[in-house]
């Protein structure tokens, strides 16, 4: 039965249900227990995100606190995955990938191919991304395009509590390494989530709003920004079809292409930087495979090619908002040759 819980609670429930189901599922990360064995400190935070709260005592020995040594413990999660465990490691902010990326892209992502198909590495790396908390340049980036670029990795970005639970359960059961991106501005978002366990398949985009005039392809937090724009545009008589990609690797090309075949117009909304991004990737896909259907040039709504600024005044300009999405939609609907 579904009831309203937050994105954070949905993630916690997914972890709890999978740890109960499968003893090989373990969790590790910084501040999971506030120092195992330190009196009065245990379970202080449940990770800085609060997602693993309560798990330390519920699953003795299976929730590991770590030093701030991302290379060592992300690598350890990967090594444990090759040895029969299903570790879920928390890389606090995705910005910290810089200190452990080698273990992810040169080790986990490549084992299966490099070793001739003989390795299975079922690791999940949960990480927090995105701007909006005035956390500045080193705690606010998206970076999912970097991981999407790497063969061997799967990249998942839930936008709702329902998707957060179903996609995390799939990530844990999946036999490939999965990068699981949680937007820091979505943790308190509430929505209907079934109590029972369920897995959502990767590579299946979600058409979150149907419309015939413009296809809006988006992901993560930008799904909500795009829906807000679509709602105000509908009042003006413009119907947007909003597609939440849910996973960027694998990518559901068919849903995007079928929609553009119907609408003839594409706007891509991506919180990441504009170059070599999901926005450019989707634009290239449509330009290559649905060129004949296009009735207007593709529009991209992205962050600018700058680091994420600190000041409220600047960060609000940096993050794509519903007005910019609406403007882009009007550009493509108003375009004439």
């Amino acid at each position, binding site marked *: 039965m579904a009831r309203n819980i937050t994105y954070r609670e949905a993630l916690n429930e997914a972890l709890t249900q999978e740890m109960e189901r499968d003893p090989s599922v373990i969790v590790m990360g910084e501040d999971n227990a506030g120092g195992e064995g330190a009196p009065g400190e245990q379970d202080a935070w449940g990770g800085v995100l609060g997602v693993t709260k309560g798990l330390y005592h519920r699953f003795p020995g299976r929730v590991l606190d770590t030093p701030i040594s991302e290379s060592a413990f*992300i690598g350890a999660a990967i090594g444990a995955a090759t040895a029969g465990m299903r570790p879920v490691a928390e890389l606090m902010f995705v910005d910290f990938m810089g200190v452990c990326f080698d273990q992810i892209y040169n080790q986990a992502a490549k084992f299966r191919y*490099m*070793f001739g198909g003989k*390795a*299975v590495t079922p690791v999940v790396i949960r990480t927090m991304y995105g701007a909006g908390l005035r956390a500045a340049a080193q705690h606010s980036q998206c970076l999912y395009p970097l991981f999407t670029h790497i063969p061997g990795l799967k990249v998942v970005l839930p936008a709702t509590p329902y998707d957060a639970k179903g996609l995390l359960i799939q990530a844990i059961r999946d036999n*490939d390494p999965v990068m699981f991106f949680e937007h820091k501005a979505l943790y308190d978002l509430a929505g209907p989530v079934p109590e029972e366990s369920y897995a959502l398949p990767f590579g299946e985009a979600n058409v979150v709003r149907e419309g015939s005039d413009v296809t809006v392809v988006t992901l993560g937090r930008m799904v909500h920004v795009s829906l807000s724009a679509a709602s105000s545009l509908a009042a003006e008589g413009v119907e947007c079809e909003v597609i939440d990609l849910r996973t960027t690797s694998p990518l559901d090309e068919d849903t995007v292409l079928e929609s553009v075949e119907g609408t003839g117009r594409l706007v891509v909304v991506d919180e990441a930087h504009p170059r070599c991004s999901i926005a450019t990737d989707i634009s290239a896909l449509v330009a290559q495979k649905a060129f004949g259907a296009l009735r207007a040039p593709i529009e991209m709504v992205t962050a600018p090619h700058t680091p994420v600024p600190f000041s409220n005044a600047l960060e609000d300009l940096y993050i794509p908002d519903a007005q910019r999405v609406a403007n882009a939609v009007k550009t493509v609907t108003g375009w004439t040759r």
Partner: protein
Amino acid sequence: MTDTVERKALTREQLLGAYRAMRTIREFEERVHAEFATGEIPGFVHLYAGEEASAAGVCGNLDDRDTIASTHRGHGHCIARGVDVAEMMAEIYGRRTGSCHGKGGSMHIADLSRGMLGANGIVGGGPPLICGTALAAKLKGTGGVSVAFFGDGGSNQGTTLESMNLASVWNLPAIFVAENNGYAETTSSTWSVASDNIADRAAGFGMPGVIVDGFDFFAVHEAASEAIARARSGGGPTLIEMKFTRYFGHFEGDQQTYRSDEVARARAELDCLLRFADRVVATGELGRSDLDAVDAEVALTIDQAVESAKAAPLPTEADLLTDVYVRY
């Protein structure tokens, strides 16, 4: 150099196994060196000759529960873990019949079924991984240990230092084996390693640090045996530093202008195979004929490995896109 330390006796089978492993590594590497010069072997190869006692002495203490992670100089570790030499040779030739179907090459030979988590093209890539395999063994209660081999170059990587700390914090059954062959590529470890010995760093991570003559199989075996027994019984990690010399360049083709006659001296006076043979014959534990028989058997095995590798098919276009994911 003579061995004066009294050590635990090894069985005849153990001694023959150790000698066979070291001789196989030597023969394999000498042959790859010769074949590489003909131009038939693609890419980069980094040879382990001279360091055989380390792989054989450490891995001689391991069993099916255990896992190792290796380096770009990984052939010796593979052989000491029992990876099939014909498949290894085919891999080095880029053949479809290779250990990794020609998709890995010399720097990525792996056989997880034999607890060999791969040679590794990234210096310092292995230590974090073996923290994970050691954690898995600990959580499952298998009694297994995990060993990370790395070089003097790898000893300066943050991954290695972080992993030693994590292994102590988590009290993991992990062994860190620093193979100090004197040079990281062309740069002397007397310059690049700021402490007098790599093993000295163990104190900073709350674990024992041991320095071993890496040319002496028996010294290696003894040190590894003690560390592994401690790890298996819950006593935590150990750092072991092997001091020795590699006989070939950093990679095949390296002109080695950075060093002089140390290899000739090591081959003549320190060589692990010569010393092993002299010792076991002197003590009467094995006869010269026993060793000669192993030599002949190994020479044949390597001949056949090269012959079959050269005759083996290359991967095809169909192989290019497979094995990226389990399911995508």
